[in-house]
């Protein structure tokens, strides 16, 4: 499974890439595989505030609707509108299919690096 080294990860299976005080957020390869084929993505609007550890978006598969949690507190600068019409992009290329860009990042969750996250995913799989 693919977990790019340049990204940071959460235990709720989001990835985050920082660029100064702006952050780009999406969901991991493991998350998209567990969720299965996505049929709908519900995103916030530019200007909305997001809070570290709280849901900011949700995705729907044929099985269930799942919340996506923000790893950081900040303001939504931009959303990936392409996902609204093409949620399958999240399954096809989870690290290109970013959900939102957040600016003014003021707080963040405990983040994992790629190795730590890979180990965490292994633990999750072992529980199954």
């Amino acid at each position, binding site marked *: 499974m693919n977990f790019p080294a340049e990204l940071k990860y959460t235990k709720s299976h989001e990835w985050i890439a920082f660029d100064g005080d702006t952050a780009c957020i999406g969901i991991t390869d493991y998350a998209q595989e567990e969720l299965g*084929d996505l*049929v*709908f993505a519900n995103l916030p609007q530019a200007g909305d505030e997001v809070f570290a550890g709280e849901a900011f978006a949700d995705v*729907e598969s*044929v*099985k*269930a*609707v799942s919340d996506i949690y923000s790893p950081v507190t900040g303001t939504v600068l931009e959303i990936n509108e392409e996902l609204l019409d093409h*949620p*399958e992009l999240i399954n096809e290329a989870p690290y290109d299919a970013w959900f939102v860009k957040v600016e003014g990042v003021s707080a963040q969750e405990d983040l994992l690096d790629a190795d730590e996250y890979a180990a965490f995913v292994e633990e999750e799989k072992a529980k*199954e």
Partner: protein
Amino acid sequence: MKLIFEESRPGRKLGLLPECDVEKYEIKAPKRALKLHLPEMSETGISRHYTQLAKQTRGVNDGFYPLGSCTMKYNPKINEDMASLPGFTGLHPLQPADTAKGALSLMLGLKESLCEITGMDDMTLQPAAGAHGEFTGLLLIKAYHTDRKDLARTKIIVPDSAHGTNPASAHMAGFEIVNIKSNEEGCIDLDTLRSVCGPDTAGLMLTNPNTVGIFDPNIKEITDIVHAAGGLCYYDGANLNAITGIARPGDMGFDVIHLNLHKTFSTPHGGGGPGAGPVGCKSFLKKFLPWPVVERQDSEAFLSMPEKSIGTVRSFFGNFLVMVKAYTYILSLGKEGIPEASTNAVLNANYMRVKLKDKYKMAFDHTCMHEFVMTLEHEKHSLGITAMDIAKGLIDFGIHPPTMYFPLIVHEALMIEPTETESKETLDDCIDAFLKLYETALENGEKLHGAPYTSPIGRPDEVLAARSLKLKYEFEA
């Protein structure tokens, strides 16, 4: 088969009407912007069309339908007999209440029976189905807090095993949802519950037995914790079939409850037919009930307006003929029959659970109530066989698939609720089918991936259907 619009031919109709012998009159009304597009069919054609459609459907009259959390029990035909009595079908909702005393008496009798079964003090019969009942019940909770000027109570606690309608209804009623994790037994974790209860708690929504078919052993402590924090307790009646006539939500500490007459009380369920979701409450909430409420004065039924009613939640009295069916069921079974039905529902579920548990892993391996949940998580990883494959395979045995992928706390879940209306032979046939499917999974997984082979439609592409949903026929311009 063809759609009715494809079968339609211009000018085709039932030709038995005589020629019009009065002068034609043009109504001066704005012209339609679009053609009306009514299908034009002969009576023969239309009769065949709908018979074909009916043959493609599947209901509890066709065979076993063990859909978990849905209580797809058999609906006795006497219910239909009673609901088609002309005294009931000929009523008009606007006729004066004085001229419909019989109907009011029936509603009163139903209300009083349901209050006795659930341990509630009063009830509205108005809500049209379960989720509508949830919404109504939450409005009662909101009205209670608002009336006491306790406006900080904005949160409803919902366990992660809840029916999806619980958080949805709470959200619609303007509450914030606090989701709490279940413990290893699939029940409420008391410490977690204590940690989220506080001055902002409006209430807790709970199903008991819960969605994994387990009666929460700490139920009284749970409702005590919520009450101590100043919140109210809401009982989702979806799983009441396990305990009717045996245990009462009112005695467990619940303040508000909805029932699904179309589950527990044998009125038709599914296919979009009308349901009914009466909402019961303890006496301190009576004054907020939707109006009108049917009340008793000596031996007479009359309509009354609760003092601080939240208003009406549906036109007139709700789905009256559904109430006739539910009351027929209650009177047919009586005080002895109702607990016996629940006992058999629990017995049937446990019989199937024990017969299946050597092959299928139970999500929670202990005695269940009316339903149980199996997990195909291991088979998914070792054999590539999913809950979906087994569910689809059952169709080829003439059995409706159980509930799949619910509750969300169990991966690759299959949730089976046989109900009390099935014989041992039917249960044995289903157990055989499950065991044969497991053999097939081990020997020939590929075959299972293609099931069902005998139904009018095999495996629809669910992803495509969800991503590009077509809901209406596109006419040629």
